[in-house]
């Protein structure tokens, strides 16, 4: 039996560009009861005004504290009454505003989002608590060395400001005043190069009308030129001394962006390393040697560049051995992979791809990132072709052309690693 044929996914996708530049992409999912949506606005932390890091992130928090005629409490109560779960945050490149609700509440939910995006109150009296919370949030990372070390490795790996924590820091936050936040909103939160994705039990024609009605009048501006620069040739090194139980190791090395022809080869390689229970890092370092509980790598592709990020946590006495083996496994993929490994990787990737269809949230997120990275949506079938193209040859060739060098390493713990 041809399995693939029996599980062919027929997608209903609609795309449009409003006259003000806002790009809409929507997908109808017949078997869910919900609708999820996501806005990507090119106003991430890279667009922060100089000397005022964290403005985009502060704006993303302050936007939820009142909009249009509704004050903070009334606005949030309106969201709650719809059973709407929402989140707003600033990434490095984009502001990301997302929501999820029962499908019948989509129209009202988008009306509230339109108020929040186009007409946020940005009340001055709310700025102090938002700044206070942002500072506490940054400090809370100190109590999670696993997260902290990955922030540190990004900072060491990517050229500034691409590698910096979008939340800003203790020095930059106090410099932010209300005029800066309002000015940033006025200039940067605009529809050109912005994306809205919607997935779920929706009527595609009605959704187009709804988005036009709510966002058609959104005044276009000039989006910032946020060009990602590739990592420096010189590898970054960082160590934070702390009396933790484990040494937390983060690493990063360059990889290809989503649009690159080698993207699926890179994805396949990362899956061979860290995709499942039989993947190499898990098998060699945890299963055979018991050196750590958590060890992984992930492909973190951006629009113009990319990185492979990795993590391992292990007690001090075993940290050097873990690290050396980690590097050894990263390099060893270039010596070739087995046919069975490729097969397992393909099944794993295809399964998670098809399972997205059971979740409106996962689909809306994929739609938005495809449009952002590629300017179009890849169909499930196209992605399946990409997965099918992964082979022993593509992975080994990719690994040879993209060795883990230069590699950036950051650690948190009671001892340092020797890195040759």
């Amino acid at each position, binding site marked *: 039996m041809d399995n693939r044929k029996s*599980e062919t996914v027929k997608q209903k996708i609609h795309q449009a560009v409003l006259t003000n530049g806002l790009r809409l992409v929507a997908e109808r999912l*017949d*078997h869910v*009861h*919900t609708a999820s949506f996501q806005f990507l606005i090119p106003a991430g932390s890279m667009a922060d005004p100089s000397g005022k890091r964290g403005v985009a992130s502060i704006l993303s928090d302050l936007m939820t504290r009142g909009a249009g005629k509704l004050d*903070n*409490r009334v606005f949030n*109560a309106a*969201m*709650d009454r*719809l059973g709407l*779960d929402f989140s707003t945050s600033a990434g490095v490149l984009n502001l990301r505003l997302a929501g*999820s609700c*029962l499908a019948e*509440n989509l129209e009202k939910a988008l009306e509230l989002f339109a108020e929040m995006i186009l007409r946020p109150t940005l009340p001055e009296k709310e700025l102090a608590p938002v700044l*206070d*919370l942002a500072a*506490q949030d940054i*400090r*809370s990372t*100190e*109590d*999670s*060395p*696993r997260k902290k070390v990955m922030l540190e490795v990004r900072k060491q790996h990517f050229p500034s400001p691409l590698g910096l924590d979008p939340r800003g820091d203790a020095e930059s936050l106090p410099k932010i005043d209300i005029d800066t936040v309002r000015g940033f909103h006025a200039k940067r939160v605009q529809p050109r190069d912005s994306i809205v994705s919607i997935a779920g039990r929706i009527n595609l024609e009605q959704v187009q009308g709804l988005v036009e009605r709510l966002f058609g009048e959104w005044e276009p501006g000039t989006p910032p030129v946020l060009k990602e620069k590739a990592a420096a040739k010189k590898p970054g090194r960082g160590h934070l001394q*702390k009396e*933790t*139980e*484990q040494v*937390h190791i983060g690493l990063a090395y360059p990889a290809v962006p989503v649009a690159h022809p080698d993207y699926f080869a890179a994805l396949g390689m990362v899956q061979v390393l860290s*995709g*499942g*229970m*039989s993947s190499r890092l*898990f*098998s060699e370092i*945890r*299963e*055979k*040697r*018991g*050196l*750590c*509980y*958590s060890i992984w790598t992930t492909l973190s592709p951006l629009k113009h560049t990319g990185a492979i990020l990795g993590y391992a*946590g292990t*007690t001090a006495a075993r940290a050097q051995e873990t690290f050396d083996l980690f590097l050894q496994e990263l390099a060893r993929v270039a010596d070739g992979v087995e046919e*069975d490994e490729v097969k*397992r990787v393909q*099944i*794993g990737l*295809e*399964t*998670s791809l*098809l*399972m997205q269809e*059971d*979740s*409106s*949230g996962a689909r809306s997120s994929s739609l938005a990132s495809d449009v952002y990275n590629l300017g179009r949506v890849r169909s499930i079938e196209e992605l399946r072709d990409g997965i099918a193209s992964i082979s022993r040859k593509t992975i080994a060739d990719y690994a040879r052309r993209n060795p883990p060098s230069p590699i950036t390493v950051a650690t948190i713990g009671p001892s340092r690693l020797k890195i040759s």
Partner: protein
Amino acid sequence: MTAAFHQLEADNGLQIIGETNPAAHSVAVGFFVRTGSRDETVPEAGVSHFLEHMVFKGSKKRKAEQLNQELDLIGSSPNAYTSEETTVFYASCLPRHMGRALEVLSDIMRPALRAEDFTLEKKVILEEIGMYEDQPGDMVFDHARKLFFGEHPLGNSVLGSTDSISALTRDQMADYFQRRYQTGNMVLACAGNFDFVEFAKLAQKFCGKWPAGSPRRADIRQTAGNGEFNLRVDGRTTLQHLIVMNAGPPAASPLRHAADLVAMAIGDDSGSRMYWEMVDPGHADSATLSYREHEGTGVYYAAVECEPGKAQKNLDRVHKIIAKLQADGVTQEELDVARTKLLSRMVRGSESPMSRLMSLGNHWIYQRKHISLEDEIRSYKKVNMHQVRQLLDRYPFKRMTVQALGPGKKLKPVEQ
């Protein structure tokens, strides 16, 4: 929803249940074992969770390496978790792999417990404990539970301690396995796109020879709480972590729905009283109230994370908010909004077969019955102001237990 429920008891007493939904793209299958850290003796501390790891080291038929490769061929990484009272092994996969997933999962539920695997995996468990100890936001819950439950076994840590795990032997684990993994203590559940008749037939083939038996759970007392206060000073920690615990209704109580709604109205992470009085003004990085049901008892946790200098005032605020709740309950408006939020999350959370599997299996383990999504929705819709009052009278917030962890040295208990 189009899900239909099916049930069958195998000859050896294994319960086989399923919820079929032909529109789903995947299927999720899992074994739910009614066992966890509360079922351990003192020298066995951490054995339930360690055993969960050992299951993935293979059976007599399969060694770990072969098992891991086979599991990856099924697609979605299978997984497992251990709590104070359940151990769950599950996998979700495409419908075409269901038979294989069931065969492999069934096979490893009779683990070989090889000595060399035991020695190696012990190291992994010790690393997991180390990782956990570096997360004060997680550790504070362990300390709080120990303080609240005292000698009650629900205070046992799921991971165990470095000492207990180091001392644990393979024979102790084998003994625990024989005692707890009997068919009367387990349920096999499946949800999503599959055929129940075929599933049940395979299940009987794979699991039909497992030993029958229904081990008892030793201690299912309701806990009242003791009003204790404990401050652990840890200079390595940056923020202050506070947990305030109080007794609540057990899993089988008809008041559990009211308890969920009250917790949401008072302490959801947005729009609740704790949010408006503590997070919105910037006093605390996070401040929530949640309710967790257990067999025989239940607990509320108020959890706060804040700057050490703000901890005392925040502890006062938590006590004030809870005292007001106890005295006046919640408003109709608060109850309605909490209900809308909770039901919306529930429906959204039930879209994937995996989330349906968890609901199906856990309800069966706790209550020995099927509770459909529609039944659950109905129960939440029925909660009214009268029931909220009943809940607060029957399980009042008094003698609350407070655990603090962080750099602050001066925190004082609040008079209750």
